[in-house]
């Protein structure tokens, strides 16, 4: 269990993370989502002990990173965003070096290295220098390094950035596999990735949490907001507007400019999960207007993300 309370981080007076409260139970895959500069990397760096928070409290299990820094770091595996590996080292030497630096109690380090090479399909590049590798292979080496100590908590900063679609699918399935036993915290700005990989999504903007829930909860929140477009004939503009505004669930009526001057085009912003089209259709029928077009557009996760991150 990771518990973050009242976390703040300022860089030269600029707020990167503001008053963050977060609890991550063990075995959860949590996705931190947000536009660039939302504070995702800062939160991950604080969690991994690379930087210290300005204020706030963090507990990793029963440990406080401020007091048990090394013990907390030993329980974590971290993949930084830019995969800053030692480029002159061979992949094998790099993993071997990390085992030595971490002082991992392995009877045969080569067994663990072979295991990871198999998991991340690194066998063909084990004796190549890190600097010669493609972005995809570098990402895999970074992931293998993060998994090296068999960590309880895996922290991944933009784990699929720069990968091709096939590699993205591979990495996602790896994360899901790992997430069955371990806590995984990853950052991304790709909604579909968070939706496909994570048990829970926290949307951040300017260092603050603007949404928190399972992908389904956030999607249902999206379903609660829908817009309907309709085109009417033989209706007066004011009368039609008043009629539409009176329909239950309709929050806002916007008049659009249609191509045909004899018709009226409206966009209605509606709340609630129920489809409002039946009510609209009945209201139009009662007044003997002609309904030329009626369509509903449920707001996607992208819309919600855009709204949440732009409105603040």
């Amino acid at each position, binding site marked *: 269990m990771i518990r973050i309370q009242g976390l703040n981080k300022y860089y030269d007076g600029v707020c990167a993370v503001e008053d963050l409260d977060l609890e991550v139970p063990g075995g959860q895959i949590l996705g931190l989502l947000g536009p660039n500069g939302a504070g995702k990397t800062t939160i991950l760096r604080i969690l991994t002990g690379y930087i210290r928070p300005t204020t706030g409290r963090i507990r990793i299990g029963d440990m406080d990173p401020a007091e048990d820094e090394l013990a907390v770091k030993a329980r*974590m595996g971290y993949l930084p965003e830019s995969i800053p590996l030692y480029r002159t080292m061979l992949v094998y030497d790099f993993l071997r070096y990390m085992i030595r630096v971490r002082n991992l109690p392995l009877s045969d380090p080569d067994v663990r290295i072979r295991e990871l090479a198999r998991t991340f399909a690194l066998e063909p590049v084990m004796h190549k220098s890190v600097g010669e590798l493609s972005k995809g292979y570098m990402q895999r080496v970074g992931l293998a390094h993060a998994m090296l100590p068999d960590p309880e908590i895996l922290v991944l900063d933009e784990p699929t950035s720069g990968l091709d679609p096939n590699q993205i699918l591979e990495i996602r399935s790896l994360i899901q596999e790992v997430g069955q036993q371990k806590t995984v915290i990853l950052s991304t700005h790709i909604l579909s990735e968070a939706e496909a990989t994570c048990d829970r999504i926290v949307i951040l903007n300017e260092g603050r949490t603007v949404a928190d829930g399972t992908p389904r909860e956030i999607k249902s929140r999206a379903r609660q907001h829908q817009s309907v477009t309709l085109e009417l004939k033989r209706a007066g503009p004011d009368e039609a507007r008043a009629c539409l505004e009176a329909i239950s669930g309709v929050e806002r009526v916007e008049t659009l400019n249609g191509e045909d001057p004899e018709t009226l085009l409206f966009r209605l912003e509606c709340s609630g999960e129920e489809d409002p089209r039946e009510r609209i259709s009945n209201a139009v029928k009662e007044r003997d207007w002609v309904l030329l077009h009626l369509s509903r557009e449920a707001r996607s996760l992208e819309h919600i993300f855009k709204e949440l991150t732009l409105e603040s």
Partner: protein
Amino acid sequence: MAALTAIWNKEFKDYFLTPIAYMVIAVFLVVVGWFFFSTFFLKNQATLRGFFQLMPVVFAFVVPALTMRLISEEISLGSYELMGTLPVRHSQIVLGKFLACLCFIAAMLLPTLIYGVSVDMVGNLDWGPVLGGYIGALLLGGSYAAIGMLASSLTRNQIIAFITGAAVCFALAYLKQMLFFMPEAIQGIVDYLAVGSHFGNAAQGVLDIRDIIYFLSIVFLGLYATKLVLESKE
């Protein structure tokens, strides 16, 4: 301890992965050999004192060239983020890198034993003071390495790290010669801070405990300040 030796080992090997290390050794041997032997026969004394007296100035340029990449490269490449999230103390990282540099300085000094052997062939060289001189040179190299590492931790640009480190080392090396321009009130302090006031004895093969304390103090202060700089980046 395992982390420290792993870092030490890696950093020492890294020196030999690029041609820069070999070039530094070659330039060091040529420059020092040239200056030493060009006046050696004029003095007509079988001693390496002249060789050791060159160390404060030559090391002021060579050692910062060895330390300039140690931390600034990690900061600029971002690999320090990786190190900073490993269960390793800053002090272990700093000490591991420092020891690697010190070992490289020792490796660089090793071929200069040939100068001693050459002098011994033409005269009767007393190896006792030579040994003292080498220990002094290592202490001096260590002090400069600590200063160079501090400079390297302050910037992500290796050239700036080199210039800063070399400037400080060069100032320490020449401080004694600058005493004439100093106000009388601070001459005593400046004289104590000058490398020349402490390495002079070592160059003659005399190891005074006060000189050893001086060099070890610089090493400690340099490394401790480097550790603080790294911690301040958190």
